[in-house]
């Protein structure tokens, strides 16, 4: 009230009061603050990531035809089914609804060749969902990226079936038997470098362009850099991933490869070749950025990304496998708790506190 004005307004009249509707107290929710929330929930985040994968899925379909669809459907369906069955077996509420299993299935499918037999897909899904995720306690508890673990298991357990890559073709409905198989550019380059042949072809602009659009042999989602990039930009725009991870991975690979090229030419093809082939793009944007298995702090994310970049280069150039993205991701996943510990951010107005154990209070239980 302002100054000394006197309040002489009469009581509100009775009829006027009756018209006014007051909230019903029996509907009121009582819970502590905060009372509002912002941003999407877990399930919505998973769905948004799946939407960002759509360009890669379309590219897979365009280049590998119906076989791509077959592999993707088998992987996704079996991942969801394993998740459901596990929840049934351990009598937990089904967690299929959080879409994380669907996402794992899609990523797994995009990480393998269109010629992978169905049983291998199902076995890989089993390993990804049950062994790599659920036995640790489900979503949020798994230390390793389920799709990466699934892929590694498939690669090791069924390496014959897993290294058959179809030559991309524009004819959609070719039967499996007719499909031409070929090695991936990465393994071709590695063997060429091993035999001391010229790597000119792999650095030619024609080849690089085909690698960029996806017209090369390889896993379903890995071949088309363009499609993965569209999805990746979507992820960053929706702030679903921390951009520091893909950027630091790609930058590290670029720097490392150009250093190798500078000091010992002929060991490996150029920077663009490495960026455009293999699972680097898909891994950098969709697999390494998996929230659960990446560090929480920004500083940690950069360390994590640089680590993956270094490992992938070392495996590709000096290791016995032509491709190392899944290995690099899983190895760095193992270091995440350590990274989080060392990249600990200091609180605002930080001050050291003496360490000492305080006994938790647990009610009656002694």
């Amino acid at each position, binding site marked *: *009230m*302002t*100054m*000394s004005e*006197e*309040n*002489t*307004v*009469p*009581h*509100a009249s009775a009829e006027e*009061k009756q*018209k*006014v*509707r*007051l*909230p*019903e107290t029996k*509907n*009121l*929710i*009582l*819970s*502590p*603050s*905060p*009372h*509002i*929330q*912002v*941003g999407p*929930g*877990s399930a919505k*985040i998973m769905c948004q990531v799946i939407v960002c994968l759509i360009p890669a899925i379309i590219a897979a379909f365009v280049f590998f035809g119906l076989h791509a669809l077959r592999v993707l459907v088998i992987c996704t369906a079996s991942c969801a089914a394993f998740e459901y069955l596990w929840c049934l077996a351990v009598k937990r509420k089904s967690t299929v609804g959080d879409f994380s299993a669907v996402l794992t299935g899609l990523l797994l499918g995009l990480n393998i060749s269109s010629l992978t037999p169905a049983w291998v897909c199902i076995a890989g899904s089993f390993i990804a969902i049950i062994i790599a995720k659920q036995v640790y306690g*489900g*979503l*949020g*508890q798994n230390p390793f990226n389920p799709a990466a673990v699934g892929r590694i298991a498939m690669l090791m357990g069924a390496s014959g079936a897993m290294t058959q890559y179809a030559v991309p073709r524009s004819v959609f409905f070719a039967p499996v038997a007719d499909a031409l198989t070929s090695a991936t550019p990465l393994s071709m380059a590695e063997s060429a470098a091993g035999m001391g042949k010229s790597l000119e072809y792999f650095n030619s602009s024609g080849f690089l362009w085909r690698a960029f659009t996806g017209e090369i042999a390889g896993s379903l989602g890995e071949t088309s850099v363009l499609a993965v990039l569209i999805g990746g930009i979507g992820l960053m725009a929706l702030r679903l991933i*921390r951009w520091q991870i893909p950027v630091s991975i790609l930058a590290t690979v670029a720097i490392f490869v150009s250093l190798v090229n500078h000091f010992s030419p002929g060991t490996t093809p150029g920077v663009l070749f490495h960026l455009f082939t293999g699972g680097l793009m898909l891994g950098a944007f969709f697999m390494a950025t998996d*929230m*659960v*298995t*990446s*560090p*929480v*702090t*920004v500083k940690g*994310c950069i360390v994590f990304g640089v680590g993956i970049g270094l490992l992938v280069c070392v495996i590709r150039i000096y290791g016995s496998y032509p491709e190392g993205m899944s290995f690099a991701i899983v190895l760095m996943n193992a270091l995440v708790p350590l990274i989080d510990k060392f990249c600990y*951010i*200091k*609180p*605002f*107005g*930080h*001050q050291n506190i003496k*360490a000492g*154990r*305080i006994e*938790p209070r*647990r009610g009656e239980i002694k």
Partner: protein
Amino acid sequence: MKIYNFKGGFHPADHKELSAGKKERELPLLPKYTVILRQNVGSAPELCVKKGDIVKKGTLIAKEGAGLSVPLHSPVSGRVGDTVLVPGPNAGMVEAVEILTDREEQVWDTSLPPIPDWRDTPVKILKQRILDGGVTGMGGAAFPTHIKLSPPPEKIVDTLILNGAECEPYLTSDDTLMRNHARAVLVGGAICAKILGITEIYVGIEENKPEAIQSVEQASWGIPGVNITVKALPVKYPQGGEKQLIYALTGRKVIVGALPMDVGCVVINVGSCYAIWDAVLNGHPLVERITTVTGTPVVDPGNYWIPIGAPLSAVLENAGGVKADSRTGKIIFGGPMMGFAQYSLDVPVSKNTSGILLLEESEVAQFTGGPCLSCGRCVEHCPMQLPVSTLSKACKNERYDIALQKHVLACLECGVCSSVCPARRPNVQHFRKAKTELKELSWKEKNKQK
């Protein structure tokens, strides 16, 4: 002057447009007011009137108790009724005294004479007047203002900060005060500066209130003797947190466990400044306050001058009630980030009710506590830069030793980390529990040593 931008924080949709810029309104006289006795932090004042006593508007009805306390005054002219138990704003039943009005003429009690020449008045008298006026903090915690203005002699205070950030979404009461009563607010601030013996005053206002900034800036010219700097601050919650505000304006960091005084600052809410001005220049104690009544279900949201003790139901009636097609899911005293949910319409307004917010059922956050995705959003947005995700897991597992090492005591309980969590984890609740437990433990420890 440089503005320091603290790390973290976020800006939710603030819906201030519902109530901002509207004319201030008053409540008509109600037949009955229930004034809660203990409205301030610290001890409750002692009742000094009996049933049937005639009181005027502003008559002392309860003297300040021992220790940290402020007196309490009657919000209207009328008769003193029973002492009753009413639902309190922070849950539970609290003691309150009824003031009954029988259409008596409303007149102010004149036992506190106005002090127009406050510049030449001794500091002691001014401080006594702020105490007599029953002035408390009017934002969140109702901390007695005269205590804030009496730093111990070994603490050197050089800056007074007027907090007009109003970072809580929905609320616009401070905004309204600054738009329409900028001079009163600044004079109140100048009185505080005189009491503290300093001349430097900073006013921190969030950028989304350009009218308030302009009117405060204009008003600051006419006040001699003090050096007033108005600063527009980045719009983000919790810009109005004491530590964040001090950092934003002065670049000084209040370390964990320290007080603003330790870095030479005193922070006072603009609402309290207005109350100080009213108490000193007009001799009116704090008996009514401006409160934002808002939310999507409310028919006529806006800012109302509400006498303390007016029940929630009467306030809502005067704001037109709720819309016919609405389902009110929550009634909150204060803002949506730190306010308290109410369960009854009989709760009276008290000195620190800065807002009455109604939320539609669909707008209410439900913290179901899914598994943590380690997405790092909480860490990114925590204004205290705490490792929230780790901390919340540690607290949930009652590993309070880890929690202590990771500075759980620094948590402001601002609620940002719960609000942004995609897994809807109730992080703040875990921290509140941990802080209580740790305090209890350290208290026990102290007792053991004795």
